[in-house]
């Protein structure tokens, strides 16, 4: 057991998976000699060589398209896209081929690839370096969309993503990368994809979030307990798609009230899907309208204003209280 940052935890997952399976290949821009711009792939090239840790030309579509070919031929490529804002050049390869080759070939081929990318705001970055557009991918059939929130689950989910027989988009909350350390077991650990986690149990209200927004969400939940005596149940989705709606519905059927928190834009965002699943399956349990605390439907502003774009503890508290106070 070691106290690791999320970067170190992801690095551990890559080291261990590459050690035990020589079909795992890491490719991307600056992932080799430089160890990645965030140092996530640090030390891999020294250990596994440049055939397995490929410093590629600066071409995102190629990284993704070549990885599809590798996966078809039995490798397990793990692509790094330096920032999720540059992943859209991969979109046609993901949408047209990665998710379709299994079906198109009638099961003859499948594409066990992972596309890792840091996402989200809060690190005072340049334009295109702070987006949270997981909905693009979550909307795509045949694709899994995973977003960890802490070092330990980042490691254990990446292990599962690499071993998954289908393509996985793995968004890493860069605001969490070095924000804190957590104990991560040395021995192998894999969390199942498609399963959320009840991080905190409660009976009065369910707050659903994921990724970097788990921190303000948990802080808000603690404040609700302290100052309002409210017991909030907090769910960390971990996998955005396929959505663990069973757990979400189970919780809301208990609490009757729900708030969803994400930094992605509100309209057609992941929260909209959560609301739909709740309305479809738990309509009669709901005691108040479901609230969404999200990024606004504007391009995320540069860093002087990004904190006013991003959900924060204050906004979550306000939404939670409004939901709790609602009387039909």
């Amino acid at each position, binding site marked *: 057991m070691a106290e690791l940052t999320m970067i170190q935890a992801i690095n551990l997952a890559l080291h261990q998976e590459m050690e035990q399976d020589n079909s795992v290949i890491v490719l991307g821009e600056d992932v080799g000699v430089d160890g990645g711009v965030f140092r996530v792939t640090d030390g891999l090239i020294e250990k596994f060589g440049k055939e397995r840790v490929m410093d590629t030309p600066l071409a995102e579509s190629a990284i993704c398209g070549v990885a599809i070919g590798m996966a078809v*031929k039995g490798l397990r490529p793990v692509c790094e896209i330096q920032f999720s804002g540059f992943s859209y050049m991969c979109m046609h390869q993901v949408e047209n081929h990665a998710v379709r080759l299994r079906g198109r070939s009638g099961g003859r081929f499948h594409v066990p690839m992972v596309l890792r990318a840091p996402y989200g705001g809060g690190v005072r970055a340049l334009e295109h370096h702070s987006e949270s557009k997981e909905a693009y991918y979550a909307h795509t059939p045949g694709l899994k969309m995973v977003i960890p929130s802490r070092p330990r689950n980042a490691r254990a989910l990446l292990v599962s993503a690499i071993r998954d027989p289908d393509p996985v988009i793995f968004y890493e909350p860069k605001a969490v990368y070095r924000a804190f350390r957590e104990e991560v077991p040395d021995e192998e650990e894999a969390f199942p994809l498609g399963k959320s986690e009840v991080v905190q149990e409660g009976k009065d209200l369910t707050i659903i979030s994921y990724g970097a927004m788990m921190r303000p969400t948990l802080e808000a939940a603690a404040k609700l307990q302290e100052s309002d005596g409210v017991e909030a149940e907090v769910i960390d989705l971990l996998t955005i798609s396929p959505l663990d709606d069973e757990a979400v519905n189970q919780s809301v059927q208990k609490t009757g009230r729900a708030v969803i928190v994400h930094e992605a834009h509100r309209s057609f965002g992941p929260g909209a899907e959560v609301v739909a699943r709740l309305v479809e399956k738990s309509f009669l349990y709901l005691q108040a309208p479901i609230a969404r605390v999200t990024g606004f439907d504007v391009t995320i502003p540069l860093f002087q204003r990004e904190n006013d774009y991003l959900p924060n503890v204050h906004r979550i508290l306000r939404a939670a209280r409004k939901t709790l106070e609602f009387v039909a």
Partner: protein
Amino acid sequence: MPREEIDIPYRLDYLSILNEKGEVDEELEPEMEQELLIKLYRSMLLNRRFDERLLSLQRQGRIGTFAPIKGQEASQLGAVATLEESDWLFPSFREMAAENWRGKSLESVLLTYGGYNEGSVIPEGLNNLPVAIPVGTQILHAVGVAYAIKYRGEKNIAMVFFGDGGTSEGDFHEALNFAGVFQTPTIFVCQNNHWAISIPRSQQTHSKTLAQKALAYGIPGVQVDGNDILAVYVAVKEAVERARSGGGPSMIECVTYRMSMHTTADDPKRYRKDEELEEWSKRDPLDRLQKYLMAKGLLSEEEIDSLEEEVKKEIKETVAAYEEKQKELGDPLLMFDHVFEELPPHLKEQREELSRELAEKEEEEQNNG
């Protein structure tokens, strides 16, 4: 501080062996087994006649939209004839003859154009990728498979087809660049058929040739008469042998012509002149190979007639088998197969939803009937 010419070692050849009159350059003529030549001729004929049959089936409404290959048989077959069975093929959407040569059935072509997903199913053991429709996107996959081949120390190669239009796509550039950097055993076969729907080759690029684009990536390129199956075979074989022995990727531009429409949803009369088609008809690859084989005494009038009969029969049987097969492919629930290895809960629910709807529909029909 001089200003001087940069020495770039590069040579770009144009290769033609068998001209449109059926005359052969004996110095360049390859030694090909009679059996292979006849097999190639038969395959060209089969695909030509099948293409014609597809057009009539489409006009009768018995299949949907399709992309005819007429005129491009030599470019395709001359290239794939150089492959080993265990090599890999990455077709775009106009490579029916290439796919068929490699073992993809004509019945599967009918299934695809007839609107059944089963048409693109790849049987175990066949290293063809399914058809890729978004232009140029498949080029990268051939680099990835080739990289994996090299990584595993295997001796196979990956051959990818694309058109003149495809060379304008970013993925073309990214793929050749990547292949050059990592020296993957990838063979890039460009069928320059002069038209990308209504856009002529001259409007895709200001470059004199498409083959010269390989120069920019530091890989060998060659332009060949794409309606000359001997030239295609020779040029591609050189590239394949080089790749197989560790010499890296190559690009071959086959100069050919799309004698038919882009797809059956298109009318070429809107954008190109009949005279152009007439000119190219004189360079028909099928006639040319026929003349060559007859001149060499490898094929007689009688044998041609009997091959015509043979492919006619094969096509008739294929269409009949397709129409029979349609009867067992009605189940709409098959759309949920192969989305993921394991169906997640929401898809199980949606499958159940459709299943219920279908049962209700059936019940309703029975009651009405």
